[in-house]
């Protein structure tokens, strides 16, 4: 089957006010099959939000050096005409932002905000708009609740409900690809689980292809098909979710998973022991270096890592990692 979305060597850099160039995405390539869910795992500063917006060519004013291509059903979105692109954004590919409280308009009722999305994509019959809005909200809320939600202003809704309204906006036009940038980050755990459940149901009922961006690996456990690990704007590891989550290969991924407090620690004793950490700070790795971006913090660094940048190596058919440790001599 052909890929629905293919990203080739995507590069985006930002120029700071001081004129310093900061490379947010540095040669990202991956492709998505229809119906697949890809989890993107990355910490702050890894470029994950830039990835989300770049796929729809929504760039910050200070973005420079944009290169590569984003092929959606064979069409390069980075080269497409503005009006072509406008037809794709929100209709065929939609984006869900991180902060539901900021993304919604504070003085418009939730129902109207969903209708606006539909209207922007050419639906102008009033009764059809009403009907579709009710249908979409009905998918995300219990029937008796949906009516009230549609009439509410964002401040009258809870964090989880607001997030659902955002999801309603995103799926209103029946997109084929959904990009979610940290959709659960500001929610508490029970609401996170519920929201994740919503995504799971939508995926089943609409056959959505999804890019799910998060910093919490536990959320990807039984949801993502594949996982892409980002570090300093580069793909450090890409593979089947189970491969990466159960037996990560890259030193960064391994260190990241180790640093999470274990819940099932059977060797727990009364003396408190320390959590393993990654030394250093991720800010330092945004400076352009010659070798591997993780080298300064890597516990397994070798001589070669300082001078050369590792390429992606296949460790199995479904698992690639960017590290010299796995390169065959």
């Amino acid at each position, binding site marked *: 089957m052909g890929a629905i979305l293919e990203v080739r060597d995507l590069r985006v850099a930002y120029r700071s006010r001081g004129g310093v160039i900061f490379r947010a995405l540095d040669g990202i390539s991956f492709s998505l099959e229809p119906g697949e869910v890809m989890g993107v795992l990355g910490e702050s500063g890894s470029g994950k939000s830039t990835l989300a917006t770049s796929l729809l060519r929504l760039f910050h004013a200070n973005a420079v050096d944009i290169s590569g291509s984003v092929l959606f059903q064979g069409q390069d979105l980075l080269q497409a005409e503005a009006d072509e692109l406008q037809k794709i954004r929100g209709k065929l590919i939609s984006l869900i932002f991180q902060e539901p409280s900021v993304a919604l308009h504070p003085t418009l009722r939730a129902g109207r905000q969903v209708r606006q999305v539909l209207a922007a994509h050419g639906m102008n019959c009033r009764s059809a708009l009403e009907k579709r809005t009710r249908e979409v909200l009905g998918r995300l809320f219990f029937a008796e609740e949906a009516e009230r939600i549609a009439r509410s202003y964002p401040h009258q809704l809870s964090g989880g409900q607001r997030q659902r309204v955002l999801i309603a906006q995103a799926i209103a036009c029946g997109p084929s690809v959904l990009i979610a940038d940290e959709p659960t980050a500001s929610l508490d*755990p029970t609401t996170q689980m519920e929201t994740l459940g919503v995504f799971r149901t939508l995926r089943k009922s609409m056959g959505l292809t999804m890019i799910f961006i998060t910093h919490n690996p536990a959320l990807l456990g039984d949801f993502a098909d594949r996982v892409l690990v980002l570090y300093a704007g580069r793909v450090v590891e890409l593979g089947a979710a189970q491969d990466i989550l159960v037996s990560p290969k890259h030193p960064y991924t391994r260190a990241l998973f180790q640093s*999470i407090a274990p*819940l099932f620690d059977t060797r727990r004793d009364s003396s408190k022991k320390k959590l393993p950490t990654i030394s250093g700070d991720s800010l330092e790795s945004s400076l352009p270096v010659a070798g591997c971006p993780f080298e300064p913090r890597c516990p397994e660094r070798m001589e070669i890592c300082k001078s050369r940048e590792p390429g992606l190596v296949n460790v199995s058919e479904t698992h690639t990692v960017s590290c010299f440790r796995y390169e065959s001599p």
Partner: protein
Amino acid sequence: MHGLVRVENLVKRFSKTRLAGPNQEVRALAGVSFSILRGTTLAIVGESGCGKSTLALCLACLERPTSGKIWFEEREISGLHEKDRRVIRRQIQLIFQDPANSFNPRWTVLEILTEPLALTGNLRGEEMRSRAGGLLSQVGLSPDMQGKLSSELSGGQRQRLAIARALALEPKLLILDEALSALDCSVQAQIANLLMDLQGSLKMTYLFISHDLAMAAYLADEIAVMSHGQIVEQGAPEKILKQTGQRNHDALFAAKSRSRFLPAHRRLAACLCVYRSRPRELFR
């Protein structure tokens, strides 16, 4: 060993003003009792809206409870006059979730740290600078960071700075209200280790408020699970973890899929577990 803090039957009600109709009453705390021993950590876990943060504000003397009593070092503090509460406040410091919002963005690191020192009133310029440098190295920051603005720091560095500022007045109790929640996993681990080091060297007492059960179990000597303004379960971390059934991993997943039919606090605990665990544990 004496308890540093003892809370008895704490109740806090807020009245919600409505444009039409009578005012609504919200019961944020509905009779909470616990005590924390000196040099130990009590973790309070629960969903948003369960009253965790109200509890923190009452303990820090920033809100007055509707009824109930709070003892701090064997002294009842909830009914004290404002002037006396001000003295107590120095000894109980709060650290919030988002350090970026708790600093004045136009102040340098040095100014942020010397403000509480100036309040004590007995340090001069040079002494203050060296004390600020000492505080920075205590939390693992470089003393030559003093001239930077808080916006130039990373999230982890900012939270370290918040801890340094809280330590400036040499408090006896540190209340950490979701202090790790906004940080990346790897940074959380660094700050958690720092908190443990400080507890070891300064004999600090912590109230750790969080919705991350794994981290709570890791840091705390005792965990209290809160729901609707009440403590519904309390005990040693091992006991709480065992009770929520995740020793047996299948039971956990059964709990997750049936979570809608579980009692509220059991459901909460099950979700808390799945939400934060090492990925490998999810596949066991």
